[in-house]
């Protein structure tokens, strides 16, 4: 468990981090627009769900957003753990996988919760 992450894995992580960043850049612009529209006049459960329930385009957009986050965020946290906490063992990869699982499941559950009619 104490062996360092291989160079090949590091390169693959870099690639996935950048690829997910490209998707996220587009998703974040969309999300910022949604936020600005949603908060106008105050947020209410009824108002939010009236827009989202049964809206499959909205669901597809946010499912894509969640999946890109699931790839991007754990790799970023792994970098911070490596560089700021000197945590460079393969244990950090396991922790990142666990965080990805939590993020992916919780994110898709949230999308399901607001989109399912």
């Amino acid at each position: 468990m104490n062996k360092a992450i291989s160079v090949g894995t590091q390169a693959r992580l870099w690639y996935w981090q950048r690829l997910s960043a490209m998707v996220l850049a587009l998703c974040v612009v969309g999300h910022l627009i949604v936020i600005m529209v949603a908060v106008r006049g105050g947020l209410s459960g009824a108002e939010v769900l009236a827009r989202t329930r049964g809206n499959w385009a909205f669901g597809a957009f946010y499912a894509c957003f969640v999946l890109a986050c699931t790839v991007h965020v754990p790799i970023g946290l792994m970098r911070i753990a490596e560089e700021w906490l000197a945590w460079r063992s393969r244990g950090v990869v396991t922790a990142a996988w666990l965080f990805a699982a939590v993020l992916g499941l919780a994110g898709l559950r949230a999308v399901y919760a607001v989109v399912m009619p």
Partner: protein
Amino acid sequence: MKRNDMRARNHAAYWAFLIHRLSGLALALFLPVHFWALGHAIQGEAALDGFLKLTDNPLFKTGEWGLVILLSLHMMGGVRLLLIEFRPWTGLRKDWVAFSLGAGLCAGLAFMLSLFS
């Protein structure tokens, strides 16, 4: 701190790195909470509404405002990194550091306008 460290840190690109890292860390920690909050909708409109009412106060609104700014800063900082890494080399794209700050400011102001409209 060594003299060279000081010189390296007294540079727009270092501050861009720091903003990108800290905003990313804050967003990564916020995401599971955000997903959990939206997941309330699974129990119905009333559950989501109850949670939203809980957050309808100046403290949470200020927090949301900060997160919107961090999200736009992180997105623009990420686009700068993608340009540095994938486009022909033209230096550290310090103009994009300024664009990022401008985008963060604009997103923060737009969010405030939406909140009060």
